[in-house]
């Protein structure tokens, strides 16, 4: 009688997660390597973009496209600004916790309302949500400073040490990005079976006993929390919380980073943000052309490389690398956490 083949213990973090977290740790080194304000600013923007795109990525793991990232960024950013300006809270750990938790908590009732909706409606409603958020920011003057925003945020402090210049700000952003990615990596790896099942066939998953709504809600809240961290980083960089930082159309950018990078893996989100934000800098030489070129890029990528840059890379290595054809049939799916490329 045959025995069941022994199951390979898949490591908790896959290759992609390790590479991503490694790259983010390297980001901490940048302020020590250079004082060039251009590079510092670029790195800052890339990290913020990547963390925001992470909010999109987490929902994409379950095949849900969320336009709500700017809304939760706003919650995190404004929370931090209010705590800083009005209550004098500057400790980075307290602020980060607040940015994450307040956003995540706001996501709970919203998630209850909209996660029940079918895929396409979910997309529309998250877009509407972000519109509402921006309108509220403009209209709720006394609370949010209206069209002036909240200005004059004090510098963040780490154990009492004030982080006031560009290098310091980058370090804060790197820290927030690292925490965001760590949380996302833990979530998507620990629950990779659940997420994958919801993405591939949620009807089947339910009939086997999986309470899909719980995991969707959890992912939605964590995505919101991570977006909150991105909002904190953004507000910290600008020292201002302003409605225009959280526009509905910026959600298009974050979605683009995640998808162009490759929605199958967490590394794709980082790569996508890095490449596209850098490219915007490059295209910004012809400033007004950049959205159009972005648009062309999106169209071309979607038609030619739906798995994003990571998908292209995976195909490339599969064809020219040392793996034999068995690789196509084995545990690639679980290792990279992707459902399909």
């Amino acid at each position, binding site marked *: *009688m*045959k*025995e*069941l*083949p022994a*199951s390979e213990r898949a490591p908790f973090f896959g290759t992609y997660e390790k590479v991503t977290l490694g790259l983010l740790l390297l980001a901490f080194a940048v302020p020590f390597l250079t004082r060039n304000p251009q590079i510092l600013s670029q790195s800052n923007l890339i990290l913020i973009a990547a963390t925001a795109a992470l909010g999109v990525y987490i929902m994409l793991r379950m095949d849900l496209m969320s336009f709500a990232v700017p809304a939760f960024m706003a919650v995190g950013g404004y929370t931090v600004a209010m705590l800083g300006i009005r209550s004098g809270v500057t400790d980075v750990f307290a602020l980060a916790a607040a940015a994450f938790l307040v956003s995540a908590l706001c996501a709970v009732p919203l998630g209850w309302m909209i996660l029940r909706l079918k895929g396409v409606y979910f997309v529309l409603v998250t877009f509407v949500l972000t519109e509402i958020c921006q309108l509220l920011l403009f209209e709720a003057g006394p609370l949010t400073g209206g069209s002036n925003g909240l200005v004059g945020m004090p510098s963040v402090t780490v154990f009492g040490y004030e982080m006031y210049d560009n290098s310091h700000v980058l370090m804060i952003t790197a820290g927030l990005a690292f925490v965001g990615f760590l949380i996302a990596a833990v979530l998507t790896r620990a629950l990779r*079976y*659940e997420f*994958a*099942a919801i993405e*591939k*066939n949620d*009807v*089947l*998953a*339910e*009939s*086997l*006993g*999986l*309470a*899909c709504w719980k995991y969707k809600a959890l992912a939605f809240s964590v995505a919101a929390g991570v977006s909150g961290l991105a909002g904190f980083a953004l507000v910290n960089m600008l020292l201002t919380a302003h409605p225009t930082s959280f526009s509905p159309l910026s959600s298009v950018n974050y979605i683009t980073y995640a998808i162009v990078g490759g929605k199958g893996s967490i590394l794709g989100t980082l790569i996508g943000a890095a490449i596209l934000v850098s490219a915007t800098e490059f295209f910004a030489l012809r400033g007004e052309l950049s959205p159009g070129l972005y648009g062309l890029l999106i169209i071309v990528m979607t038609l030619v490389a739906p798995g994003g840059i990571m998908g292209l890379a995976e195909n490339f290595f599969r064809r020219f690398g040392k793996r034999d054809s068995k690789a*196509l*049939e*084995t*545990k690639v*799916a*679980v290792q990279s956490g*992707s*459902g*399909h490329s």
Partner: protein
Amino acid sequence: MSALSSNGGETLRIEQIAKSFGGLTVFQDISFEIKPGALLGVIGPNGAGKTTMINTISGRLHLSSGRAMLGNTRVDGQSVFDNAKRGLVRSFQQTANFSGYTVEDNLTSALRFSGQDRSSLSRLTPLLDRFGLIEHWNRNAEILPYGLQKMLGLTMALATKPRMLLLDEPAAGLEKSERTNVDIYVQYARDEIGCGVMLVEHDMDLIKRLCREVIVLDGGRLIAQGEPADVLNRKDVIDAYLGGADDEDEHAQHS
């Protein structure tokens, strides 16, 4: 008899259930009971509401009236996953697995979602071997032949240690040679796991081989109940399938 865990099965009691969509009545006044270890065949022409019935019992749709009980718990109107956790598990007509996942990961998912541990899977080893799934353990389910994918889906349902199994045309699309796998599967469910089985099928040979009791659904009504040999010879059952062929044709066939 094998070592039955204390799980065993629970009785499924269906009491006068009915389902309509708007003005369209899909089925009405259906009642039956399946005890642990028992097997009930459900046959009837297409469109008679059999799959909808499974959908309502499992919780995917709401009943319009009547109720479904598993043991002492009401299962209609409950969510699918709650019912699955209670042991009411269904299979799907089409191949139902997580495409892109290996055979192993598919089964692991089934274990995880139902809260079972790996021992549940080890007990299925003889089945997995017999169906040819161990041979393809690390293969992507998508590339497996249809029959294997079907058996994978069925085995996943079994891995959840069900107390009542609702099978929706398990033999559909299988080659003649593969159909005996369904026999083995059903026997395992009844004897080793101890759950009751509701078997919706079109394959009459299969039904006659396995079932001691069948019910016939036609036009949403339960028109016959009893042993296959008797039921399948009843005129109203034959008419249901042939759409009311007139007597001349029938006589011509018999003579």
